């Protein structure tokens, strides 16, 4: 199967059951990521963007019963229903992770070199000595100066930007085919953010990896991603190539989000553009379009049934909005 994308998610639904409540943070989402490609997943807190990526890999808090339906195929293999031991072999090896906060992703009482080497030992069956050599290579790869000295340091001795580089090196230690980066630059300053993004992009190209970039920052999307999925209240509102979606957003929510970004031309002291209302809280599945209460274009059909994500007039962009798809709003 040469044509199958590296990651093929179709109709993924995640239900979470806690002692108190049942919620559906992900509701029928589909997307694909090919080798060497970067997909951005954008959405607000509670839109399901993180759960969608972590639940199929068993990365959920304890005390929550997770039930998955749909299909997540990675390298031709179905992940849903895979026993934990098998998932463990993939997690951290073929799929690497980068989390938002580099300090909590690293063990504060172990030297950096050991933490990276550990991954190589575990996933590539390396001897400790070979793994240490690999750690040195990786630290060089992520552009850290004086690599040998850094390996002997502890995470608290490094700045936020350096720590995030170490986290990236750790994620790369298992030679992943897919890198999932959850808000990798949100905790960093703009000056450092630019460097880390450039590094990620460069590594992705050089190692021909696929990358899923979870973020809420359109600037990050614009610089790094090929395709984008815009999530709203557990569902995909719009999906397509970044060049098209960011330049000419179709779904009213995507339009609102992009319109809300302050621009250099906005006069000082002028009103900020935003979206009216508040995002829905997670709960039971919603009958119609979850964005309808905040939408300027909503019509009665919006609340009657769930709008499907279908190709728009431009075949490469998929939009879940009946109004846009029927051409009633100027798309």
């Amino acid at each position, binding site marked *: 199967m040469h044509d199958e994308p590296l990651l093929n998610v179709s109709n993924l639904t995640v239900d979470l059951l806690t002692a108190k409540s049942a919620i559906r943070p992900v509701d029928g989402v589909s997307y694909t990521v090919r080798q060497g490609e970067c997909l951005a997943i954008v959405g*607000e807190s509670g839109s399901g963007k993180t759960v969608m990526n972590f639940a199929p890999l068993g990365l959920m808090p304890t005390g929550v019963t997770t039930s998955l339906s749909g299909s997540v195929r990675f390298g031709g293999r179905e992940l849903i229903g895979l026993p934990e031991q098998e998932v463990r072999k993939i997690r951290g090896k073929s799929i690497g992770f980068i989390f938002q906060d580099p300090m909590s992703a690293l063990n504060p009482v172990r030297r950096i070199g050991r933490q990276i080497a550990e991954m190589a030992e575990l996933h590539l069956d390396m001897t400790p000595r070979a793994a240490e050599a690999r750690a040195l290579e990786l630290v060089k790869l992520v552009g850290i100066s004086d690599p040998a000295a850094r390996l002997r340091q502890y995470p608290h001795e490094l700045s936020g930007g350096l720590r995030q580089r170490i986290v990236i090196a750790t994620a790369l230690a298992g030679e992943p085919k897919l890198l999932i980066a959850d808000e990798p630059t949100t905790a960093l300053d703009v*000056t450092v953010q630019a460097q880390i993004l450039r590094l990620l992009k460069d590594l992705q190209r050089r190692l021909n990896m696929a990358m899923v970039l979870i973020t809420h920052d359109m600037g990050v999307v*614009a*610089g790094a991603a090929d395709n984008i999925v815009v999530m709203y209240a557990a569902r995909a509102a719009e999906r397509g190539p970044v060049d098209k979606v960011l330049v000419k957003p179709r779904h009213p929510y995507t339009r609102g989000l992009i319109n*809300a970004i302050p621009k*250099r031309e906005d006069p*000082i002291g002028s009103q*900020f553009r935003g979206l009216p209302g508040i995002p829905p809280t997670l709960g039971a599945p919603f009958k119609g379009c979850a964005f309808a209460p905040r939408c300027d274009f909503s019509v009665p059909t919006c609340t009657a049934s769930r709008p499907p994500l279908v190709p728009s007039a431009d075949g490469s962009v998929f939009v879940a909005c009946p109004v846009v798809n029927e051409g009633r709003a100027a798309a």
Partner: protein
Amino acid sequence: MTHRPVLKVENLQTRFKSVQRGKFVHAVDDVSIELYPGEIVGLVGESGCGKSTLGRTIVGLEKATSGRVLLDGVDLSTLSGGALRDSRRALQYVFQDPYSSLNDRQTVGEALDEALQIDGIRSRTDRDRRTKELLDQVGLADVVKDRHTRELSGGQRQRVAIARSLAVNPRVLICDEPVSALDLSIRAQVMNLFLRLQKDLGVACLFIAHDLELVRQAASRVYVMYLGKIVEHGPSQELYDHPSHPYSQMLLASVPEADPIAERQRKVPLMVGEVPSPTNPPSGCRFRTRCPMVVDDCKQQVPPAFKLSPGHDAACVFAKDLHRGKRSALLEAEVAATRVAALAS
């Protein structure tokens, strides 16, 4: 501006004892700023530059090592007892995280009522009337007052936190990253609230943030801070159009653009090196260890603030050239970045 500043900070210095014995963390070093009634002023800089410490020192959450904070011309350090409490009420702080700045067990009404009692309003009916007024000012419906703060969304909680600081009729609000914990679609609503409060109530606002575009649109003037010092200050439009300190130039050039085509063509200035430790800041200009334009003079003495245009000054020996020649430092920065990249590979 012929009127007097409502808040004046003079040569303020805040130091903390370092874990290294006998050393100090120079968090805020010789900072002077002014705030006029009814204006929003931005304070930008990277994490660890001392911008929050400056805000906290102004309201008295940290103790200044030296320097003065004047409210309406009165030095706060000379006050005590009731007079100090009165001045504290005039200076209010809005925290970044509305999830930890409110008591989960209180209803919105209770949270506001508490502040009003502190303000000395004895009569219950007066307090109720004022609660209603405050909720209205921050754009919340009256029914919200019976709900617990934990039931509210982030944006609503931040509105309650703002209403609470307004309860005591402050003259100055110190807002420390007030919208960065909020979702993108909600940010604009809260920002517009600040704009309205400034117009309607004439509250002066020191807006501490790292989001440069947000600050540009909201603030009439901006201070740029690096490693405990103000490196540049000026009217927003002027400063964003003609950044005249190498650090400001880099900071502004680092902001990504949401347009994919523009973003791919954008030249990213790669900052050289790391932010030095505030325990052991560099001599002379603090930015010199990372500056692409550094010369010997920078090591010898702290560069004075050069006046560039009315109200715009920058503390760099090249400020006047940068003000005229705009992006010269950046181009050199790109050269430096290529050099660094060449070294790494």
